[in-house]
C-alpha cells in the first residue's frame, strides 16, 4: 500500500465536499468521490474507511471552527447583556441549524455506537463551546450582572434553551434546515427565559 500524503488527503476532502454539497450526504457515494479524483477505490478507502468518516471530516471541522469563532466573540463586559446574548444566539444557531451541520449532527448520533464520530463531535465541538460559554458567564456573574450560580450548568441551560423550540424537528428531519429569520423569535424567547432564570432578583 502506498504511503498517504497530505496533498492527496486534501484533494479527497475537496472532492468530497463538492459531491456532498451537490447531491447531499444520502445520495453521495464513495464512487462519485473517487471519480472526481481518479485513482482506485482502495486508495480512497485507505484514506477514509467510510463515507460517514469522510463526511464528518469534511463538514464537522468547518462548522466547529465557525461555532468556536462565534462563541469566542462573546463579550462579558457588554453593556447590554440581552443584546449580546441575542446577537450570539442568532449567529450561533444560524450555523448550527444549517443543513450541513444538521446532517453531521444526526450522523454523529446515529453512528455513535458503531464509530467514534459521536465521541469526536462531543470532545471537539460540544465541550470546548460549553467551556467558552461558561467562561463568559462566569465573568458576567462576577461583575454582578447575573446571579451567582454554577457557570457550567448555566452555559448548558443557555445552549439547550436556544434549541428548545427546534431541536426535535430538526433531529427527526421534519424540517431540513431553518431560515435565519425563522430562528430569531426562538432565540429571543430563549434568551428571555435564560435571563429571567438567571437574573439577580
Amino acid at each position: 500500500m502506498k504511503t498517504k500524503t497530505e496533498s492527496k488527503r486534501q484533494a479527497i476532502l475537496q472532492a468530497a465536499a463538492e459531491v456532498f454539497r451537490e447531491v447531499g450526504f444520502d445520495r453521495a457515494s464513495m464512487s462519485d468521490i473517487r471519480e472526481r479524483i481518479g485513482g482506485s477505490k482502495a486508495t480512497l478507502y485507505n484514506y477514509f474507511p467510510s463515507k460517514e468518516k469522510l463526511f464528518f471530516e469534511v463538514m464537522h471541522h468547518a462548522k466547529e471552527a465557525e461555532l468556536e469563532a462565534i462563541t469566542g466573540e462573546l463579550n462579558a463586559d457588554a453593556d447590554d447583556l440581552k443584546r449580546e446574548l441575542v446577537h450570539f444566539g442568532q449567529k450561533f444557531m444560524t450555523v448550527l441549524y444549517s443543513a450541513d451541520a444538521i446532517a453531521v449532527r444526526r450522523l454523529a448520533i446515529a453512528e455513535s455506537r458503531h464509530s467514534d464520530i459521536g465521541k469526536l463531535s462531543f470532545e471537539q465541538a460540544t465541550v470546548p463551546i460549553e467551556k467558552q460559554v461558561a467562561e463568559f458567564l462566569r465573568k458576567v456573574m462576577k461583575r454582578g450582572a447575573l446571579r451567582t450560580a454554577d457557570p457550567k450548568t448555566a452555559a448548558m441551560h443557555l445552549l439547550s434553551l436556544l434549541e428548545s423550540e427546534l431541536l426535535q424537528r430538526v433531529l427527526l428531519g421534519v424540517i431540513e434546515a431553518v431560515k435565519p429569520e425563522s430562528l430569531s423569535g426562538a432565540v429571543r424567547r430563549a434568551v428571555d427565559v435564560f435571563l429571567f432564570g438567571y437574573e439577580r432578583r
Partner: protein
Amino acid sequence: MSKSDSKRQAILENAYRLFRAQGFDGTSMADITSQVGGSKATLYSHFPSKEELFVECMMAALEDYMSDTLKHLDASRNDPEAALRNFGTSVLNFICSPEQVEVRRLMIAEAARSGTGKLFFDKISALRSQISSFLAVCMASGLLHRDDPDLAADHLGALLEAEILEPLLLHVREAAPDEEETAHAARRAVAAFLRAYAPTAPSIKVAAGPNAHVRRLPPHEL
C-alpha cells in the same frame, strides 16, 4: 385483555425486539409475522405499514411511562416546585436509561431515511401537550405567569435535558446517571424554570420584542 389486544401486544413486543436488533431496513413485516405467528393479513390489520409499527413500538414504553407519571402530577398542591422537581427527576431517570437512549438514537437514525420523522414528531408533540396541560393549570391558578404553555413545556424540557442527555446520545458515556445526579440536574433546571416563569416575571412573548405578537410557526412551516 381481549384476544385482539394480546395479539397487538405480541406484535409490538416482537417488532420492538427485531427492530432493535436488525434496524428498520433489516426487518421485514414477514420477519415479524414469523415471530408472532398468524398471517401477514392479521399483522396489517393491526398496523397498516411497517413505518407505523416501527413508530408505535419505539414510542410505546415512553407513552406508557408518561401517562402513568402525569396522572400523579398534581397541580392543585401548593408546592409546584417540589411537584416539578419530582417529575423532572423521574423523567430524566426514564429517558436516560440505556434502553430509552438506544430508542432515541434509533429514532433519529431512521427518521430521515425511512420517512418516519413526522410520525415520531406527532407522537412527541402529543406527549408534550400533556405536559403543557399541566403547566396551563399552573398558569391558571397563578403558580406560574400566564404564557404560551407549549412554549413553556419546550423550555422546561430543554432545561431538564441540558446537563445530561447529549453525552449519552453520542455514546461518550454509557452508564446511566444515578438518582442523585438526575435529582441535582432536575433541581437546577426547575429552579431556573420557576424563576423564568414566576408569576412576577414578565411574559416571555411580550418581553420578546417587536415581533412577539407573531405566534410561533406551526410545526411544519419553518
